[in-house]
């Protein structure tokens, strides 16, 4: 069993900020827009170094999406930054018409996704954004798991021609993927090999899946852990080749079970290789105030929940 070391808890949004700073230095076409959340999105380094390429739009997300779309005309690569709720639900029609349908090369970068936003509560804890974004034709949807991967993904999406939704979060979480890794959009990363059950996780749940695999290993269950950082396009091959070995699967995400990673995986399985599946996800509910750890426990989005669902799905084989 592979061992992964947490090199120190750090927030994924800081990975975005670090990646954006590098892009600012390396790619003169990269521009950034923010709707009054520069500090929260960790965009200060870019703003300070490239004030001419940074646009503070104020609390006006709809306008921000339109301006970003327009900036692409003339060759700019705009990165928008605000919370996930205001990056998606609030501006869905602007993204749909001015960005996705118009085929604009905008990178929608969204922090504070999911329950781990914490104490601010359900108004800000969007659990529907992956579904909203993956339904848009041509939209690439990425949900990274730690600082290093978020940094790498931020840099990688600048070279992808087309709209991208990049989702990350607020809390300090384990940083365990390689420093200065290369990031390939749409390519799943196998973290553990196992033959009993496949665990496919995205975002903050990837570290939890590794923790769950350790527990399962101690109990004699070999779990294969796959980090699906790209929800769309989904790496169908990686999922199918794994379930052909294991015969059952658990999906894990900080998102509603309706519309998220789990449903995308179900679609692949139903079409190509029907397989018992369990979902670690919120159950069609809003969140609430609390610490991230309390919320993840209450809503069943942690290593303990993944272990339970793994045992449940094993019985269905």
């Amino acid at each position, binding site marked *: 069993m592979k061992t992964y070391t947490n090199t120190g808890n750090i927030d994924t949004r800081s990975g975005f900020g670090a990646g954006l700073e590098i892009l600012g230095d390396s790619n003169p076409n990269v*521009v950034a827009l923010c709707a009054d959340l520069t500090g929260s999105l960790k965009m200060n380094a870019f703003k300070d170094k490239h004030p*001419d*390429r940074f*646009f503070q*739009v*104020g609390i*006006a997300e*709809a*306008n*921000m*999406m*339109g*301006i*970003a*779309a*327009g*900036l*692409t*005309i*003339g*060759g*700019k690569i*705009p990165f928008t930054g605000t919370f996930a709720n205001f990056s998606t639900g609030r501006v869905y*029609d*602007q993204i*749909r*018409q*001015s960005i996705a*349908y*118009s*085929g*604009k090369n905008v990178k929608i970068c969204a922090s504070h996704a999911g329950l781990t936003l914490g104490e601010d509560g359900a108004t800000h804890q969007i659990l529907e954004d992956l579904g909203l974004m993956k339904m848009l034709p041509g939209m690439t949807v990425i949900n990274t798991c730690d600082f290093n991967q978020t940094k790498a993904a931020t840099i990688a999406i600048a070279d992808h021609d087309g709209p991208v939704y990049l989702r990350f979060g607020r809390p300090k979480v384990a940083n365990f993927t390689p420093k200065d890794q290369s990031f390939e959009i749409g390519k799943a990363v196998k973290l553990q090999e196992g033959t009993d059950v496949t665990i496919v996780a995205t975002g903050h749940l990837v570290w939890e899946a590794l923790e769950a695999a350790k527990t399962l290993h101690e109990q004699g269950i070999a779990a294969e852990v796959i980090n699906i950082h790209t929800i769309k396009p989904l790496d169908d091959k990686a999922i199918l080749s794994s379930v052909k070995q294991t015969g059952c699967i658990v999906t894990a995400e900080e998102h509603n079970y309706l519309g998220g990673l789990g449903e995308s995986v179900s679609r692949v399985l139903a079409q190509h290789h029907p397989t018992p599946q369990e979902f670690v996800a919120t159950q069609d509910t809003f969140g609430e105030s609390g610490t991230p750890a309390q919320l993840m426990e209450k809503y069943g989005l942690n290593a303990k929940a993944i272990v339970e669902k793994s045992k449940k799905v094993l019985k269905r084989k």
Partner: protein
Amino acid sequence: MISSLITAHKNVFVAQLLVYFCTKRYKMTTSSNLQEFVTQVRRDILRQVHKVNSGHPGGSLGCTEFFSVLFKEVLRAKDHFDMDGKDEDLFFLSNGHISPVYYSVLSRCGYFPVEELKTFRHINSRLQGHPTTHEGLPGVRTASGSLGQGLSVALGSALSKKLNGDKHLVYSLHGDGELQEGQNWEAIMFAAANKIDNIIATVDYNGQQIDGSTDDVLPMGDLKAKFEAFGWDVIEEENGNDIDAVRNVLAEAKSKTGQSKPVVILLKTIMGNGVDFMMHTHAWHGKAPNDEQLEIGLKQNPETLGDY
């Protein structure tokens, strides 16, 4: 060939010269010539919507003079269409439902074959009910139809021009009823705050929307005062269906660019202009004429440049 020359020379100065000489410089058309163009565009509008029994003739007819002057005389556009639109003026249509006038003028300015107007709103057409980039129609740089989004996109492209050191201008057109959408006011506030002075936005001020007059549906008060309060340079034009008036107001607007303020033209137009029974009512906002009505409308606008 030109682009390969540019690549071969790798010389910015030469490239700029080439771009300059390749840029269309429309000769000033006389009013009578442009009137013929306007009349033909009106025919195109009526025939497009009649054929598919759908579409928006009212606003299209009201903006015919604006489109004709803008595209024939004002816009400095390159001979070929590319999405990036560097080193040329750009136009964005925010009230996308008036696509019939947009398509007619684009085609008659050489962006695509006039014959293609036959396919308006048909299946497998590039001429969708509302304009889109999705089908690759030359001349269109953003989808529009869901109202209130065009100004933000136009502002983004104006910022892009500033970053690129491109001195060309960005033009946009908006319905007056469309200003009820809140995103406009986000954009209006942003433009002034950021001194975006390379944009000329025009409001088609016809006072009509689907459910009735704008004053009946949601009165917008004094638009001039509102734009001025938001820091824009405002020009009012009472005769938006007069070719010379449109020509003059666009020239005046251009003279006001580059002065640290965005410029807006409040262009009073008559919905349905040029077809008597369609004028002064919102009834023809989104309704096509029947056979008999088409005949009357065409009689009032005799063929000038040749029907498609």
